C-alpha cells in the first residue's frame, strides 16, 4: 500500500540523519512513539515530538528506556506502527524487551544511534560496537533484522524498509545508525507519498472461533488479530502454543522457538540487502557497513589508483548476515579486509562465513573518530602483495 501523505514531507531537504530518520518513520506510518533522551539519538525524538502532533499522532517521553521499549509494543498490539530510539546504554536497558518482541512476534523498530562504548563511553562520538548486541543482546534463541544506513538519505529510505520488514516478518528490527550518520547533514530527497511502498500489517481473515494467534502457514509468520473484535487472544512471553497459551514443555519450546528462528533463517534470501563496489574483479575484498562503508569507498578509489584490484562488499542488512554472497565473493579474492568501528564484531561473521578459504584481516578502530582512508589503504596494500 502507499504511504499516508499526511506523514510524508515531500521535497528536497537538508537534514541530518537523526532528523531524516524521524521523517522516514512518519512516512512509514508511525503515529505513536515513545522514547527517552540519550545522545546522539535525542534529536530523533525531539523532532518526532514536534512532528507527530502535526500528523495526528502522539509522542510520549517515558520515564526510562525500559518503559519506552515496551510501550511501543503495547501501541503495536493496539494497531499502531511504533518505534523507539536510543543509543548504547539505553539499548542495553531495552534488551529484555527486544526479546519480548521477538517472542510475541511484535513488529516494531528500535533505532540505535551508536556511540563510543562500552558503558557511558563517548556519548557524542561515533562507534559501531553494538553490532553483536543487536543480534545477541537479549537472552534465549531468537532472530532479528538489523539495518545499517550510511547517509541521511538512507536514514529516511531504510527506516521505512525497517518498518516494512518488521511487519512482514513480525520481528523487532534494529536500525543501526551511528553518531556520524546521525549528525551529518546532507541532501535528503523525500518523494511523493504515492512513490513510497508500505507493507500493510497482515491481519487474520479467520473468524474468532477458528483463529489461532500463533499458528503460521508455510511463510512461518502468523497473521495478527485485531483488538477488541471478539478475538479475545492471549499474548505471553512464556513459551506458548498456537493458541497463545503458556505450555511448559520441551515439545512446545521446539515447536515455537524453532519457528521463530526459522522464519528468518530459512527466508534470509528475502531479507538480505547489500551494496557492491567494484567486486567483479576484486582480489582484495573489503567489507564495511554503516559510516565506515563511506570511508572505505575512498580507500577503494585510492587502491584502484594504485592498480590494486580492490572491491567493497557492503552489507546494508547486517543481520541476518549475507553469508551466501560474501562466500561467493570471498572465494574469488586473495584476501578479505574487514573495516569496522570496533575491535572486531562483524569480522567474526565474516571469518565464520569465509571459513578459512581466504585469509581475513581486521582493521579495527575503537570509535570516537572514523578510520582514515589511507590507514585502511596501508592494510590493503599489505595484503595485496
Amino acid at each position: 500500500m502507499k504511504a499516508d501523505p499526511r506523514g510524508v514531507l515531500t521535497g528536497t531537504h537538508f537534514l541530518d540523519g537523526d532528523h531524516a530518520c524521524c521523517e522516514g518513520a512518519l512516512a512509514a506510518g508511525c503515529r505513536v512513539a515513545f522514547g527517552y533522551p540519550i545522545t546522539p539519538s535525542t534529536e530523533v525524538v525531539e523532532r518526532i515530538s514536534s512532528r507527530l502532533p502535526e500528523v495526528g499522532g502522539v509522542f510520549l517521553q517515558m520515564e526510562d528506556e525500559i518503559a519506552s521499549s515496551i510501550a511501543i509494543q503495547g501501541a503495536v498490539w493496539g494497531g499502531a506502527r511504533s518505534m523507539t530510539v536510543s543509543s548504547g546504554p539505553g539499548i542495553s536497558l531495552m534488551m529484555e524487551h527486544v526479546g519480548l518482541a521477538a517472542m510475541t512476534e511484535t513488529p516494531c523498530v528500535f533505532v540505535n544511534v551508536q556511540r563510543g562504548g562500552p558503558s557511558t563511553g563517548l556519548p557524542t562520538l561515533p562507534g559501531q560496537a553494538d553490532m553483536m548486541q543487536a543480534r545477541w543482546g537479549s537472552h534465549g534463541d531468537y532472530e532479528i533484522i538489523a539495518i545499517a544506513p550510511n547517509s541521511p538519505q538512507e536514514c529516511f529510505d531504510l527506516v521505512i524498509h525497517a518498518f516494512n520488514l518488521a511487519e512482514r516478518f513480525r520481528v523487532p528490527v534494529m536500525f543501526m545508525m551511528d553518531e556520524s550518520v546521525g549528525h551529518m547533514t546532507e541532501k535528503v530527497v523525500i518523494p511523493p507519498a504515492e512513490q513510497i511502498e508500505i507493507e500493510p500489517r497482515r491481519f487474520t481473515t479467520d473468524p474468532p472461533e477458528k483463529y489461532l494467534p500463533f499458528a503460521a502457514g508455510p511463510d512461518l509468520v502468523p497473521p495478527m488479530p485485531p483488538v477488541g473484535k471478539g478475538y479475545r487472544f492471549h499474548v505471553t512471553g512464556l513459551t506458548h502454543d498456537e493458541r497463545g497459551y503458556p505450555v511448559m514443555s520441551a515439545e512446545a519450546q521446539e515447536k515455537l522457538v524453532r519457528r521463530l528462528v526459522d522464519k528468518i533463517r530459512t527466508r534470509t534470501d528475502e531479507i538480505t540487502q547489500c551494496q557492491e563496489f567494484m567486486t567483479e574483479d576484486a582480489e582484495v575484498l573489503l567489507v564495511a557497513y554503516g559510516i565506515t562503508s563511506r570511508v572505505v569507498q575512498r580507500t577503494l578509489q585510492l587502491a584502484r589508483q594504485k592498480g590494486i584490484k580492490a572491491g567493497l562488499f557492503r552489507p546494508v542488512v547486517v543481520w541476518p548476515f549475507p553469508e551466501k554472497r560474501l562466500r561467493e565473493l570471498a572465494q574469488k579474492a586473495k584476501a578479505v579486509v574487514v573495516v569496522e568501528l570496533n575491535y572486531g564484531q562483524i569480522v567474526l561473521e565474516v571469518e565464520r562465513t569465509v571459513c578459512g578459504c581466504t585469509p581475513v584481516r581486521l582493521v579495527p578502530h575503537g570509535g570516537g573518530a572514523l578510520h582514515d582512508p589511507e590507514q585502511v589503504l596501508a592494510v590493503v596494500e599489505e595484503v595485496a602483495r
Partner: protein
Amino acid sequence: MNQPRNPVEPFLRMDRMPHIWCPGCGIGVVVNCFARAMLESKTDIDSVQVVSGIGCTGRIAGYLRMDSYHTTHGRAIPFATGLKTARPDMKVVVFSGDGDLVAIGGNHLIHAARRNVDIKVICVNNFTYGMTGGQVAPTAPVESLATTSPFGVFEQPFNLAFLADSAGAVYVARWTTYHVRQLAKAMREVLQKPGFCFVEVIAPCPTIYQRRNRLGDALDAMKFYKEQSKLSEGADTRALDIPMQGPIPVGRFVNRDRPTLLENMNAVLGKRLGAKYQPYPTGVTR
C-alpha cells in the same frame, strides 16, 4: 433441564480451568470479583484489554477471556500506556502483584499516576513474591519471614494507598479478598472512572506467606481480614500502614477528578498550536 452454568464463565478461559493458583489463593477471588464487576456493569468484553506482569497475579491475563497480554516483570503499566495511547477507546486494566507493580515496576507506577494515564490498576498484595517461593517484597511487614530475609524483614514496607495517592492517582481504594462485594463494586467504579485508578487487594498466599509465617491457611487469613479490617472510608492515606497481624484499614480513600494524560495533551497542544492542532481521541466522555 439444562444444568445452569456459573454466570462468570463467559469472562473466563474455561478451556484452561482449573487454574494454577493454590487452594484458597486470593487471586482466584480477585478474578471472580472482576468477572462479577464486568457482569453487573454489563461491560462489553471486547471493550476491555487486560495487561499483567509476572508472578502469580500476573497469570490473571491468561485466565480472563479478553484480549490479554502477559508482559514482562514490572512493565505491565508502560505496556498498558502504549496500548491505551494507540486505542484510547479501550478500557485498559492492569492486574499485577505487589512485587511486580511496586518493586521492579515502582517507577512506572508513580509516573503513570503522575500523568494520570487512563488505566485501571488492580494490585494484589500478598506481602510476598509468591511464584518464586516467598522472597521479601516491598510490602512485607517488618519481622515477617521471607526466603531472602530469613531472620525477619528489616525494611519498612510501603503503604501502597499512600504511594498511589501521593503520586496522583484519582481513585485509590484498598479491600481484602474477604470484601468481595465491595471489591466488585470498586472494580465497577474504576471501569467507569477516567484516569489512573488504583485498587489494592489484600489477599492470602496460603502456601507461602501464611505458612512460612505460621499464620494458618487461607481460611484463617480470610477470617483475620474479616475481624481485623477497619472501614476507613475517605481516610488520610498517610495513616494507612498495615502492621503485621494488626488492623487493616480498608475502604475507598481517594476519588477525585483530574484531566487524563491525553486530555492534558490536547489542552496544552491545542493552546499552543491553535486551529492547526487536531485533538487526539482520549476515550473519555465527560
